[in-house]
């Protein structure tokens, strides 16, 4: 039983990792209707910025704020400079631009900071009263932050005019423009916010998996799985998807199929669910007008 609980909590902790980056994917999807394959590398790059700040002697939270702001600006600039030229290109051309971004960022990070793994400190300290063998301070803290980002994001899309405008711009750019929404600005804003959320995720993930240019390679696949499983247009679904993927993968590996096939089985399960619920667990069904 104790072993089972350990596995369960380990799964919840990794699930939190997937959830945090899945939120960034939902953000970019809500504002552009694309899935950004380079989201992980952007987050990795942001985390290196934070690491550089911390190494330079900045307090953790100062580095955190600075990185989030810088990532927001960088995201908006990337949209304007790199993505805008392919705004009207076919979907696959956009995918290729994402792939180009991914390899460029990965390679640059390796060049600048080398491939040796680095430690990225965690800001969380567990109060004595809550110490337990199941969940470390960092794991608990990052789940908390992820949930906070989730609430903020949900409220943003649900209650603010800006959130509504952004969704409209993504869904139907032509009508939105007619309704007076500045679609270009919405896209930049969406990219900026996604990059900022990604930066938060990166800084939560790095203390667990260590900081290196390839830190996101394994995480991204599960984050995609989480976002799609939960529903790519629903932040609540994405976070739920993250926890489900984390827990199922851990338990399957430990008790059902062994580690050699756990990745394969987890993926097959997810695809199986998607076949029966093609828009994810909490995704909205879209009705196509003919």
């Amino acid at each position, binding site marked *: 039983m104790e072993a089972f609980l350990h*596995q369960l909590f380990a799964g919840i*902790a*990794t699930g939190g990792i997937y959830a945090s980056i899945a939120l960034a994917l939902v953000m970019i999807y809500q504002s552009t209707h694309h899935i950004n394959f380079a989201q992980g590398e952007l987050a990795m790059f942001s985390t290196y910025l934070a690491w550089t700040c911390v190494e330079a002697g900045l307090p953790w939270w100062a580095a955190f704020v600075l990185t989030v702001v810088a990532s927001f600006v960088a995201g908006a600039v990337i949209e304007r400079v790199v993505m805008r030229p392919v705004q009207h290109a076919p979907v696959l051309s956009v995918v290729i631009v994402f792939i180009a971004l991914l390899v460029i960022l990965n390679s640059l990070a390796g060049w600048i900071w*080398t491939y*040796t793994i680095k430690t990225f400190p965690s800001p969380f300290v567990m109060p004595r009263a809550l110490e337990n063998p199941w969940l470390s301070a960092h794991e608990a803290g990052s789940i908390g932050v992820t949930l906070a980002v989730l609430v903020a994001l949900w409220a943003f899309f649900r209650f603010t005019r800006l959130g509504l405008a952004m969704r409209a711009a993504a869904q139907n750019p032509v009508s939105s423009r007619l309704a007076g929404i500045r679609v270009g600005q919405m896209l930049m804003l969406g990219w900026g916010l996604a990059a900022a959320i990604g930066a938060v995720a990166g800084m939560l993930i790095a203390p667990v*998996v260590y900081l290196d240019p390839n830190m996101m390679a394994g995480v991204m*696949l599960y984050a995609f799985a989480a976002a799609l499983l939960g529903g790519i247009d629903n932040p609540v679904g994405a976070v739920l998807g993250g926890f489900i993927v984390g827990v199922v993968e851990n338990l399957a590996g*430990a008790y059902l199929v062994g*580690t050699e096939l756990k990745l394969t089985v987890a993926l097959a399960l997810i695809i199986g669910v998607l076949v029966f619920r093609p828009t994810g667990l909490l995704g909205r069904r879209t009705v196509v007008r003919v």
Partner: protein
Amino acid sequence: MNRFIRSTLVAVTALVATGAVAAGKYSPGASDTEIRVGQTMPYSGPASAYAAIGKAQAAYFQMINEQGGVNGRKITFLSLDDGYSPPKAVEQTRKLVEQDEVLLLFNSLGTANNTATQKYLNAKKVPQLFVATGASKFGDPKNFPWTMGWQPNYVAEARVFAQWVLKTRPDAKIAVISQNDDFGKDYLRGIKEVLGDKAAKMIVLETTYEVTDPTVDSQVVQAKSSGADVLMNIATPKFAAQIIRKAADIGWKPVQLMTDVSASVGAVLTPAGLDKAKDLISASYLKDPTDARFKDDPAMKAYYAFLKKYMPGADPKDSFNAYGYNSAANLIHVLKTCGDDLTRENVMKVASTMKDVELPLLMPGIKVNTSPTDYYPIAEVVLIRFDGQQWQPFGDVMSGR
């Protein structure tokens, strides 16, 4: 001028030139002024961390050239990107042999990539020297006389570990966490060979992880709940660090043995947490550059001077730099010994008759030895224990031959 006439002219001029100096016997890739050395490395892709080795070697050869080269000949080092993909490695290796005409292939990285090129290089009779992998299959002079390993092979090191466990804890319950590839499989084989009939009883858990796994927390939890009191940590640096940290975090303190691949204080134990790594056991054949005991060692001083001059900004804690430095030094030793007979046959002859060769950063007591029937240049390791600050060797030099 057509190509034929031009190449004939070049050949004639070359003949005249060599006639004038009158010296060496050469295979393609060697001349009176130059020795061409080829290599493939993952400069791009998921394994690019290892490319630090190729960069260190390039810097080392630059140093040798500035010091006058090898018997007056400059080393031209052609290290190409294979992206850690076997088909690309085959393509680049063929480029090196057929187009760039290198004398030999040196320290190309990766088990799969070297397996992919092994047959080709042996058919072409091009030395595939000191491959950068510890897979035990690269020491088979009967079937592949042109292929030679370098570092202690994984099976040999695993044997040393298993012998130590048998001697000190005959009733141990062992959990093994290994990378799901040839590195993990070779290790497991070595352990089981030594344990023999007892393996089934002593090994209470075998679990693996993939290089694409974000974390190995689940495996560590699994290992703890198996009731094991000895943990074999057979992982590459990032995952080795994760295993050490997670075991400490869940309050598990088994006797933990870790491979020399990850025995770097700077790149593994510091990220894992020095206090969490205390009492860890590993094996080593290279001196750790961060070890205070070697601070005044002349070879170590020379190494630091080399880094400062030829690789400014390089991290001395990165064990790949030390690896590249030493393997390159070994190649230079071979080429120097060849003298003016730089044929591929002679290169293999010299490489397969190394006797007690000393390299700058080898642990005291370990030397390079080969024979025409033994293609494992380094086969000794020293067991080391981490005291919370640095590695402390204990016991004698142990051979896995």
